[in-house]
Every structure is written in structure tokens, then in C-alpha cells.
């Protein structure tokens, strides 16, 4: 199968970006919206064509979905080590193409309504196109360096979009924070790449992830501090992934990133960019799995589980609906990481891998829906805060329904999408690591609770008096909601395990009924609790908040992670390091240089008395000079 037409998928948004960026002021907003949507539509169609071709036309060769590569050398480091640019088609990249295309298209459509009247309308679409392009590049990357390049580009588009409302101080700060935190994580990623490049001599995914390849087989060749250097590299690369995917402790940027326009949050900070970390780990999965018996993979599992729990707890306490969703995203991403972390490689052993990808897929749908729904609400009430909402079900029926579907999906109510994927994750965890299984189940309950907390809080709960009665959003916004709601409800039935597995062979997955029951039950308990707490105005939440006391306070303050970071950056790095260096530079380094000059001038002033103006002193100097020289040369420096 020829895969060259797939190049068009990323190139369309790139063209759009350049077009919109250059024409910027000379193009009517409505036109730019249409151009954006149409462009994305073509990319989406192509993505579906690609998926169809790959899975059904091309199909399996020798029982596996083979990887196909088309690439060209972009830059040479050494004759053997080079950065290629190209596309790699394999199950996960095709799956990601679908995810990115669908969500991006929906968001594009949605934004036409949501951003209407904004003065930066064209700019917004330009940025969205830039992001989409970068995300395509990322998922199609053939090698570590290419993925790093697009990794940075999605980072910067995220920066630009978070800071979209650039006159707002908090947005600027959030954008900066997002970029710098992920940049810090990327530092690890980059060093990891450097290590891999040096020790394996290649960046190419196919070579690296070949279980029979030298990169994996020779992992033990060099070690550092008791671990293989490759393990170190993987841990560092995971650090990069953790930064993008908002894993603890690099998650702090994600909640703040909600300062961006809501469609952006839906696209970047829920469905696509944030899963890049998961994708990265999945991409390198054979390395993670085989090198040093999965040492790095264990770390992935623990970090994922902890983040899932950590974020879910915080999500319960937040009052800004977008922040709740942000922590929810973090929690779900933790889930995916956890799934990857407990996965095996061959056949059914690889259920975790499959589940993770599956969850990524479904999560993209329902989380994008949740965000878009929240955006619709925010659009209507002009506030992010739960206290400004309530009883909206009467004003916004479509939003209500679609949001409910999404909430049920994430809570794992069968037969919606989230149920299926979450179930697979729990199976994988159960089979490999009991403790993590319990954590996961607990988180599932929490998830159900917090999501229904906001659902009830928004659409039910107290009757809020609105200054302007909220209206249902226009069709351009509700249409994507409906589409995504349909998807959220149905994609769970996709026989995912046949397409996307760790070894690309595929297997038949079966529902594990006891586990599914437990999960569903937990979810229902969560929903019921939320129903009890929040369906009507009640004192229960406050009571329980008091019961948990300081723990609640800690959770409410996000366990003071922001403060810790602020302390490290502002107090230590800025004040102690940066300011001191600046002062040191002025005072000592520069001071020395100027001091040399000043000393010279000072010496000059000091010795001016030698030239006293008195001819006898001159003669004295003359004679002393002669005598001293004579003495020196006759008595000291005799040969």
C-alpha cells in the first residue's frame, strides 16, 4: 500500500496555518473559520481512508499489522546517526490519526461558534491548525528526534493557545508555566534521546523497538549507578512523557492551562496533546518492557497509579468546572499510564497496552465532549465557577444530555465507551498487580463521584438567578456535542484488541464479568453519592468537608504542589541563584575587570609624585638608576 498520501494529512493544517498566519488581517473571520473547518475535514477524511486502508485493505501480513515507513533524511549528525522526517504507519499511529482528526475537526466546528466575535478569530484558527499539524507530525513520527521536534511544536502551540487571551495576566502566567514545566520535562526527554542515540546508534523507532534488535538485546552493555543506561534513558524519556501527560509531579501546569479558550482545552489539554506522553511510552513499549525486565515500566505504572489517585482526590474539591475536568484528565491519563505499566507484551499478556490505547481512544471522545459541554455552559453563563451555575438543564437541554452521556462514559457506566476501556485496564491491573488494581478501582469510584458532582452542580442543584437567562448554544457548538456524544456512547464497541496490541498481532478480548461488575458497582456508588450530595442544595458536602478537615484543605489546595514549585522556582532559582548570579556578575566578574582598570589609574595617581618638577630629583633618579643598575649587573647578574 502506498502511504505517501498520508503526508497530506499533516501538510493540510500546515498550509492552513501559513495561509491564515500570513493573510491574518486581510481575511474575514467567517472565511477563516470555514477554511479551517474544510481543511480539517479533508485531513479527517484522509485519516479515515488511511485507517480503512491500513486495517482492512492492507490488513495483516504474516499475522501482524506491519509498520510502514516513508521518510527522508532531514539532518545528519554523523553518517550513521541522523534525524529523519517522515511518517510511520502502524496501528497506534493510525488510531491516533483518527483521534486527532475527529477531535480536532469537532473543535474546529465548535470554535466557529464559541469564538464568534473574538478579535483574534483568524489567529485562533491559525494556531489551531498549527497545533493540529504538530500533533499529526508527532503521532506519525518515525524516530525519536522527529517526535521530539513535534513534541516541542505542540508545546509551543499549546503555549500560544493557552496564552490566547494575552491581555489577561493569569492566561499569560499559565501559558508560561505550561511551557516551562513541559520544557523542563523535555530536558529529561532530550537527555534520554541523547543517551539512546549514543548507546544504540539510532533514533529509529523500528530499530529501537524490535524485540530481537540490538537496542533491546544489548541493554546491559553499559550501566550507570546500578542501572542500565538504557533504563536511565527510558526513565528520562518517561519524564518527558510525564511532563506532557501531566503526571505527578509535573502536572501542575495542566489545571492552569485551563486559562485558554475552552475548545483549546478540549483539543489539547484533554484529547490529544496530553496523551502524547502515553503515546510516547506506547511507542517505545518494547523497550520499556524488555530492557532491564521492565524496570522503567514499573516506574510508569506507579507514577500513573499515583497520579490517577492524586488527581481524582483533588478533582473532588475543586470549584472551577474546567479545573475539575483538568484533574479528571490527569487522573485518566494516570490510568492509561498505569495500564501501560502493568502490561505484558505477547498476546493477551499485552492487554494493558491494548487497554491503555483503548482508553486513550475513548477518553479522547468523552473528555473532549465534557470540555466542549463545559465550554457551552461557560459560554452561556460567562463563568467557570460551580457556584455561578445550577439548574441549567432547563435552559440547555442538548448540552445537558450530551454532558450526561459523557459523564456516564467516564464514570464507566455500561455500555458507554468508558466502561469498556476501563474494564480492560482493571483486568490488566488485576492480572499483574493487585495493589494497583485496588487503587484503580478506588479511583474509578472517585471519578464517578466528582464528575457527577459537577454534573449535578451545573445542571441540577440550586436554582441560580441569572442576570441574562442562559441560552442553548448555537448549532455550530451543539453539533460537535452531539457527534461526540454519539461517539462516546458507541466507540466502546469497537473490537479494539484486534487492531491495537503491543505485538501488533491482535487478540480477542473478553469481558471479565466479576471485575466489570465490581467496577460498575463502584462507579454507581460514586454516582449515587454525588446524587445524594449535590442533586439538591444540601449541607452534606460541607459536613463531610469538615469531617475530613485538614485533608480536605490539603486537597482543596492541590496538596500545595504549586506552592512547592513556586518556592523552588521563585525563592530558590530566581532569588537565590539567578539574582545572585546577576549580582555576582556585576560585582565580582565585572568588578574585577573594572577593578583592573581602576587600579591602573589609581597607580598612575599614586606614582605621580615621582615627577616632582624639581630637576634635582630627576638627577637623583638618574644617578640612583645608574648606581642600582651597575650594582645589579656587576654583583647580582654576573655570568
Amino acid at each position: 500500500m502506498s502511504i505517501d498520501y498520508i503526508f497530506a494529512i499533516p501538510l493540510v493544517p500546515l498550509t492552513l496555518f501559513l495561509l491564515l498566519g500570513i493573510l491574518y488581517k486581510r481575511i474575514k473571520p467567517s472565511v477563516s473559520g470555514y477554511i479551517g473547518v474544510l481543511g480539517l475535514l479533508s485531513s479527517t477524511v484522509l485519516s479515515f481512508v488511511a485507517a480503512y486502508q491500513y486495517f482492512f485493505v492492507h490488513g495483516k501480513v504474516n499475522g501482524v499489522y506491519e509498520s510502514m515507513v516513508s521518510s527522508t533524511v532531514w539532518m545528519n549528525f554523523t553518517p550513521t546517526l541522523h534525524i529523519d522526517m517522515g511518517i510511520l504507519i502502524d496501528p497506534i499511529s493510525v488510531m491516533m490519526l483518527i483521534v486527532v482528526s475527529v477531535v480536532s475537526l469537532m473543535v474546529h466546528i465548535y470554535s466557529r461558534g464559541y469564538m464568534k466575535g473574538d478579535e483574534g478569530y483568524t489567529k485562533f484558527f491559525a494556531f489551531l491548525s498549527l497545533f493540529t499539524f504538530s500533533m499529526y507530525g508527532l503521532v506519525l513520527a518515525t524516530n525519536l528526534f522527529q517526535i521530539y521536534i513535534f513534541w516541542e511544536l505542540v508545546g509551543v502551540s499549546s503555549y500560544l493557545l493557552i496564552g490566547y487571551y494575552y491581555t489577561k495576566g493569569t492566561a499569560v502566567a499559565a501559558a508560561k508555566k505550561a511551557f516551562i514545566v513541559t520544557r523542563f520535562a523535555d530536558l529529561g526527554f532530550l537527555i534520554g534521546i541523547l543517551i539512546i542515540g549514543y548507546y544504540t546508534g539510532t533514533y529509529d523507532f523500528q530499530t529501537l523497538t524490535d524485540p530481537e534488535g540490538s537496542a533491546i538485546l544489548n541493554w546491559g552493555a553499559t550501566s550507570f549507578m546500578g542501572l542500565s543506561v538504557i533504563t536511565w534513558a527510558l526513565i528520562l524519556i518517561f519524564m518527558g512523557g510525564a511532563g506532557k501527560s501531566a503526571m505527578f509531579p509535573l502536572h501542575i501546569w495542566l489545571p492552569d492551562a485551563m486559562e485558554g479558550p475552552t475548545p483549546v482545552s478540549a483539543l489539547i489539554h484533554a484529547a490529544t496533546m496530553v496523551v502524547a506522553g502515553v503515546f510516547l511510552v506506547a511507542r517505545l513499549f518494547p523497550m520499556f518492557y524488555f530492557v532491564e525486565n521492565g524496570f522503567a515500566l514499573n516506574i510508569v505504572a506507579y507514577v500513573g497509579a499515583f497520579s490517577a489517585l492524586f488527581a481524582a482526590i483533588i478533582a473532588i474539591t475543586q470549584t472551577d468546572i474546567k479545573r475539575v475536568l483538568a484533574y479528571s484528565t490527569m487522573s485518566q491519563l494516570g490510568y492509561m499510564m498505569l495500564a501501560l505499566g502493568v502490561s505484558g507484551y505477547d498476546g493477551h499478556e499485552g492487554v494493558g497496552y491494548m487497554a491503555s490505547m483503548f482508553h486513550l481512544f475513548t477518553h479522547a471522545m468523552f473528555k473532549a465532549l465534557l470540555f466542549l459541554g463545559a465550554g457551552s455552559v461557560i459560554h452561556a453563563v460567562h463563568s467557570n465557577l460551580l457556584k455561578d451555575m445550577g439548574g441549567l438543564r432547563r435552559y440547555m437541554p442538548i448540552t445537558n444530555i450530551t454532558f450526561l452521556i459523557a459523564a456516564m462514559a467516564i464514570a464507566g457506566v455500561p455500555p458507554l465507551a468508558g466502561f469498556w476501556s476501563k474494564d480492560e485496564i482493571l483486568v490488566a491491573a488485576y492480572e499483574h498487580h493487585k495493589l494497583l488494581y485496588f487503587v484503580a478501582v478506588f479511583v474509578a469510584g472517585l471519578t464517578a463521584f466528582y464528575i457527577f458532582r459537577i454534573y449535578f452542580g451545573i445542571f441540577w442543584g440550586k436554582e441560580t438567578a441569572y442576570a441574562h437567562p442562559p441560552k442553548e448554544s448555537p448549532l455550530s457548538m451543539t453539533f460537535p456535542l452531539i457527534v461526540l456524544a454519539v461517539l462516546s456512547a458507541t466507540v466502546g464497541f469497537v473490537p479494539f484488541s484486534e487492531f491495537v496490541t503491543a505485538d501488533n498481532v491482535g487478540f480477542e478480548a473478553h469481558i471479565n464479568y466479576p471485575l466489570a461488575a465490581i467496577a460498575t458497582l463502584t462507579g454507581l456508588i460514586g454516582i449515587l453519592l454525588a446524587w445524594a450530595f449535590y442533586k439538591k442544595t444540601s449541607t452534606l458536602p460541607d459536613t463531610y468537608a469538615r469531617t475530613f478537615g485538614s485533608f480536605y484543605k490539603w486537597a482543596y489546595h492541590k496538596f500545595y504542589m504549586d506552592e512547592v514549585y513556586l518556592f523552588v522556582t521563585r525563592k530558590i532559582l530566581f532569588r537565590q541563584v539567578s539574582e545572585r548570579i546577576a549580582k555576582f556578575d556585576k560585582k565580582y566578574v565585572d568588578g574585577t575587570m573594572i577593578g583592573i582598570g581602576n587600579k591602573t589609574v589609581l597607580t598612575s595617581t599614586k606614582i605621580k609624585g615621582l615627577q616632582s618638577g624639581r630637576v634635582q630629583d630627576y638627577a637623583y633618579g638618574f644617578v640612583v638608576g645608574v648606581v642600582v643598575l651597575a650594582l645589579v649587573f656587576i654583583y647580582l647578574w654576573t655570568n
Partner: protein
Amino acid sequence: MDILSLFIVIPLLTISALLFCKNLQQSRIVAMIGSFIQLGMSINLIFSYFNERLVNSDIMVFTRDIVWFKPFNIHYNIGVDGISVALLALTSIVVLAGVFISWKIKDLPKEFFISLIVLSIGVYGFFISIDLFTMFVFFEIAVIPMYLLIGIWGSGPKEFSAMKLTLMLMGASAVLLVGILGIYFNSGADGGPLTFNILEIAKVNIPFEAQKLFFPLTFIGFAVIGALFPFHTWSPDGHASAPTAVSMLHAGVLMKLGGYGVFRVAMFLLPEGALHWSWFFIILSAIGVIYGAFAAIKQTDLKYINAYSSVSHLGMVLFALLMMNATAWNGAILQSLSHGFMTALFFALIGMIYERTHTRDITKLGGLLKVIPFISVIYVIAGLASLGLPGFSGFVAEMNIFVGAFSHEEMLYRITTIIAVSAIVVTAVYVLRVVGIMLMGPVKNQTFLTLPKVTWYEMTGIFLLLIPIIAIGVAPLWISNMIIESLQPFLHGVL
């Protein structure tokens, strides 16, 4: 007249034409035409170079050798390889952009352009020289006009800054002179005649003792102009006081002389000395990289930020040069180019902002994206390029450096490399800090709402600099091939 000598002759002709100019109008047109011809020549040179390479595999092509001072065996000996071709192109672009940016220079326009072009002669000459003596002559020619340029047309404590800059650079060139003489008098070590010819000396096995002695002198002599820590302090003050075009030329081109000199003289001629001393200078330059970046965070003057950023970026160049392999060297040259365009662009933008708002203090600025969107957007782009975003030249250069630096297994190299790599985070911090404070946020000062728009000559200047940044960043292969090819003879010296 050979193609390279024109790089000296055309500016000289431009200067003579300028002497007859009466006012700003005439002088800037003359300067612009002169610089345009230069740009055309350097572009032409790139193509001729590629053609010449097909048939000519010498280290240097387009050579010309005229005996100058026979008793000393000093020659006027010029030639180029891929590296010098690239740097010549950089120079001509930055000079032309500088002329555009100085379109409205008020005080003594004729003299300004003359000094600018004298400076460019020095730079051109430096890059095309094969003879150490000629090289040194041009080096000093390039430095001294800075005094007048900063002193007359500068701002702030200009007299002090100009003096400091000149003295530190000339002090460095004094040290360099000792190094050059040391090389010269050891160039007969294999029994041949003493020579200043770099290519000839490279063939000589200079005794190790001499290499050990003269490498640091040569290195420091050149590296001071490349802002080696702790000899970088001339640069912040100098940049801050210099007029826009001068900052551009200075940071964009003049500071490149350091890296180029280190490479072509210190490393090429004294490879064993380089190996012997590399640990020391690697530490210094790695400190410079991170130190400059951290120092930049706390500055509030735009030019200081950029100056410290240059310390950091050029520290990277020296760092890469000391890594002694083709990848890192390629990165170093690319970084020189990239930093040249980038920092020139930065200074051009800073100049435009200053001209409009009359302040360079970022705490007094704010919300510029709203009032001067074009300049601000370009500033953001330049900032992103500076923090090494893929798609811009900085990324290509830095990745080469990192990969090259990482191919050493010793602990020292590893640690310093990681320190250098971590600068990418710090760079992000200070770049985004400026962008956040100055460009974004609410408009701080109501008078800013009426700031004039960008003019055609400013735009021309900006695009001249922006295009190469993107060109290198998007398609690095052609230029890196050109450089890598030219690195081969150097590698043989080291290995």
C-alpha cells in the same frame, strides 16, 4: 580581481563614495547599495562555492596568495571553505539589515555608515584570511570602529561602555598576539620556513610544550570576543549602550569572530594543546552557558537580557568547539550562524521598540502585542527561535551540539553536557518572561496606544534576518553538508 578580494574592495569603494555624501539621504542610499552588492556577492559566492567544490577538493577554494612582507613570510593569502562562506553570508545579511535599521540615523550619518562599513571590512577580511597575520590585522580592524560607533551614536553610559568594550577586546587581542607569535615561531618545527599560513602550519607538528603554552593564549584571545566566561562583561554594557545597528553587527557578526578564530586557529593549529586544555575551557564555557542564562533571568533591560543570552548561546559555541568532533563542530558553526541572525533580529526589534516607547525597561512596557502587533509577533518568533524551537535555526544547531557533546563518555563531558543542555529550560524561562511581561498583558501606558506602525525599511530589515533563521531551521541539510564537508581537514588534525 578575484571573487574574494571584492569583499574588501567593494566596501572600500562604498566608503570612498560615502566620503562625498552630503546628507543622510545620500549616505544611506550609498550604504544600502554597497551592502546590497555585498549581499549579492555573498549569495553568488555560495553558488560558486558549490560549483567549485565539484571540481576542487582543496581545503580552501578561490585562494589567492600575494607575498606581502617577505622577510616574515607574511602573505596576503585568502580563500574560503564552507564555514567561511556561510559566515560571509551571515555578515552581508546582517550588515544590510543594519543599514536598513539605521535608516533614520540623525547624528553624523555619513560617519556612522563609514564606521559600520569599516567594521564589516574587518569581518569580511577575517573570514577570508588564510594568513594569520592578515587575519589578525582584520580582527583588529573589526574591533576598533566599535569605539566610535558606541561612543558617538550610543546611549546611556556610552563613553564608559565603549571604552570598556574596546579595552577588553584589545586586551584580548594582545594576548592573542602572543599566541600567534608563538605559533609562528614554532611553525618551523619540522624544518620548514617560518610561516603565518594556517594551512601550512596545520601540517607542521608543533612541539607539545609549545602547544600547551600557546593554546590557552590563542583560545582566550579569541574567546573573549566570543564572550567566554568570565571575560564576557564587556558585552552587556557594550550592547546596552550601542545603537541598534551596532548591537546587531556586534552580537550578530563580531562575536562570531571569536568562535571562528578559536576553531580556525587555536584548535586547528594546536590540536594537542586543545586536547590538553579542553577540560578547563569546557568547564568555563559550560559555566558560561548556564550562567549567562541565569543572569538573563533577572535583568530588566531588554538589551542586557539579550546580551546575557548571547553569553549563554556563544558559550554553547565554544563548548561545542571544545568537543572536538564533527557533529559538535557542525553545531558550533550552525549555532554561530543561528545566533548571528537571531540576536541581530532581537536587537533590531529592541531598537524599534525603544525608538517608539523610549524605554528598554521591560517593567515599564506591557501589552505591546496590542499596539505594535507586527514587531511583537516577530519578537515572539525570535524568542521562540532563541529558545531552540524546532523549525528555527537554533534547534538544529543545539541538537548538533548536544549530540556531538554526548559522544564523549568521560564524566566531565557528561556532566558539562547535561549542564549545557539544561540551559534550554532556563532560556525558555527568560524568553517567556520577557514575552509575558513586555508583549502580553494589559497595555501599561496609555501613550503606547498611539505608537507608530512598522515602516517598510524596518520590515525589510526584519525579513532579511528572519528568512535565514527559518531557512536553516526547516531545511538544515544543505548548509550542514556544506559545513561538515569543510570540517574534514580539521578532524584529521585532531584525531
